[in-house]
């Protein structure tokens, strides 16, 4: 078998472009470092990969794989923004939208929401599937933080951040089935007020959607100045987005 240039060096091909990597990096880590966007939701550069949302699925040498968990290797040929993959990603997004209650018009996270921005990026124009309209509560018991579970996409980032950075284990993934599974609060009452959660916790600012919200600050940033008003998610500066 012929040895290509990328096999001889620490690079792989992503949609025909040479992407350098350092040994141990995953495909998505190398792509992000290079400034190339691979759609994703549950992956965050500060945390270990979770591999659950499957939005970062790419084709590696013709086979599907999660770019957040697959190590970059010399000579890999990776497909990313193909019509086939973006179609599948759009379907995953549509399923996430109908599983929860995502009402962007009145959501304070609108314009700063990774889910919404990714939907725009992937040209999702309708939910396609029937809405589930799950009955989910709002936990407003904490003096500084409001939890609106209607918008949970089960990325687990808050669970990881609270556990691994804050050392508090405030959140856990629980419940069964499509309607039951979501993030929960690990206090005996199930209320956030009965935990030691604080506004300064890393978990308080990790939510990619509108579940964990700082109280009394909604809509403080005007339309036109929000993160994704300025540029689509695929064109954001690397340090601005997860």
């Amino acid at each position, binding site marked *: 078998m012929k040895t290509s240039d990328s096999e001889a060096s620490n690079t792989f091909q992503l949609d025909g472009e040479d992407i350098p990597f350092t040994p141990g990096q995953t495909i998505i880590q190398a792509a992000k470092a290079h400034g190339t966007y691979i759609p994703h939701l549950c992956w965050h550069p500060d945390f270990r990969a979770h591999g659950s949302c499957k939005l970062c699925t790419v084709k590696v040498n013709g086979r599907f794989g999660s770019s957040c968990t697959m190590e970059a290797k010399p000579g890999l040929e990776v497909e990313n923004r193909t019509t086939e993959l973006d179609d599948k990603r759009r379907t995953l997004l549509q399923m996430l939208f109908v599983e929860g209650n995502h009402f962007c*018009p*009145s*959501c*304070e996270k609108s314009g700063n929401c990774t889910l919404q921005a990714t939907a725009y990026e992937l040209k999702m124009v309708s939910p396609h599937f029937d809405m589930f309209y799950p009955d989910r509560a*709002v936990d*407003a*018991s904490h003096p500084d933080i*409001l939890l609106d579970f209607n918008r949970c996409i089960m990325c687990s980032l808050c669970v990881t951040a609270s556990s691994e950075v804050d050392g508090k284990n405030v959140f856990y993934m629980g419940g069964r089935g499509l309607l039951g599974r979501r993030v929960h609060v690990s206090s005996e009452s199930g209320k956030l007020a009965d935990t030691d959660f604080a506004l300064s916790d890393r978990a308080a600012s990790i939510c990619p959607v509108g579940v964990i*919200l700082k*109280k*009394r*600050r*909604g*809509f*403080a*940033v*005007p*339309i*036109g*100045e929000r993160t994704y008003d300025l540029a689509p998610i695929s064109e954001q500066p690397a340090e601005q987005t997860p």
Partner: protein
Amino acid sequence: MTFELETAISPEKLRRVAIDPVSRVEGHGKVTILLDDDNKVHQVRLHIVEFRGFEKFIQGRPYWEVPVMVQRLCGICPVSHHLAASKALDMMMGVKQLTPTAEKIRRLMHAGQILQSHALHFFHLSSPDLLFGFGSDVAARNIVGVIAAHPEIAKKGVLLRKYGQEVIRMTAGKRVHGTGSVPGGVNKSLSAEERAELLKDAYQMVAWSRDAVGLIRQLFEQNLTEYNRFGRFRSAGMCLVAADGSMDLYHGGLRARDADGNTMFDHFDYSRYWDVIGEDVKPWSYMKFPFFKSLGPEDGSYRVGPLTRVTHCDSIPTPLADKEREAFVAFDGGSSAGATLGYHWARMIEMLHAAECIKDLLHDDDIIGHDLMATGQRQERGVGVIEAPRGTLIHHYRVDENDQVIRANLIVSTTHNNQAMNTAVREVAKQYLDGVEITEGLLNHIEIAIRAFDPCLSCATHALGQMPLEVAIVGADGNVIDEATRDHRGLTRLVS
């Protein structure tokens, strides 16, 4: 108690004509008319059949979300709900005085709203009736017909509305359903560039608004008897006025006068509106019937909106509009100031006032200031009242210690005018439909009375003439005797 023509004595013997829907926009309205064999009118009812539901589904939501969420009540005047909710939540937050920049940006936003909504209401929705005649050819009786026959009038209407929308976009972030007003203030002021951009056309808007007042005056002069008589009825009225009694569409105290013009209450603190206003229910309508408590549900109905505001205020604090107010109330011995179609004249005077306010505010340096938010001592509830384009708008919320809304009550302009609109359509039915064969043109007279009050019940008809409409005349035995349809292209077909 029922009003004349509200309930027929023996409805089972009568045939029913229904205008359904009167509109497709948020006020899914319907008019039913009961006639006997001689086409004598026995009952006329305007039904607003929508279930609004906002009071219920904002329960449990965080209060800061409310001004953005409740404005979805309306696509024509969302700014009114956005601001009324913000004012209510200012009170809940204990904010007694906004920063000068915040108050002026909100006033600018509101003036933009009045300008665009009044332009839409008059030019796009109502002017076809007035320019072509109440029973004129339905194929041309729409804004496209106005563009063809009166291109200069149509152009001014379209550009006035566009300018108002631009004012809203620059103050709220979007032309429709923005986020600019937040409890305690605003999230943006104008940049110097935005101010300069709006100033370019501000004087043109004032001039065109003056022309619009001249146009409605001219139409009254040409059709004085019919315009003054059309759907006319005596009514009490209510609106906000400033401390000096002048017109203030953003803030003030409540002023009410009975049908004889006697003051019932004045400068009333709206935070206790329930002391003077009650809400009655009727078995045939989903919409409540507000009334002055001192007069009771039988005699206490009233009307709100431009006609009431222009005739109840002592003055208008912008010179050109005030001059037009004086001319209006003096015209023909004051006869048109009590006419249902006088709403349109008053509406154009208010549009001129809004254009003058925009021009003045754009010259005020506070609108480019950066002090946007105020704070105060938290309260359990808040009431916000504003004069929306169609009339007085009341928002009332209670918020718990966790920042969640636990109760809400909204009394919107259309609801205040419920009895007034019913009375107007009954008067029109008596004047035009009684004892004659019903035609599309005659049914349009009913809709013209509604349009005088409320664009949300007429926009589907007159935006592009595309309101599908079915009218069925059903005999006492339940069989359809005659029917007429208007399809999605606006074409009317009589079946028989």
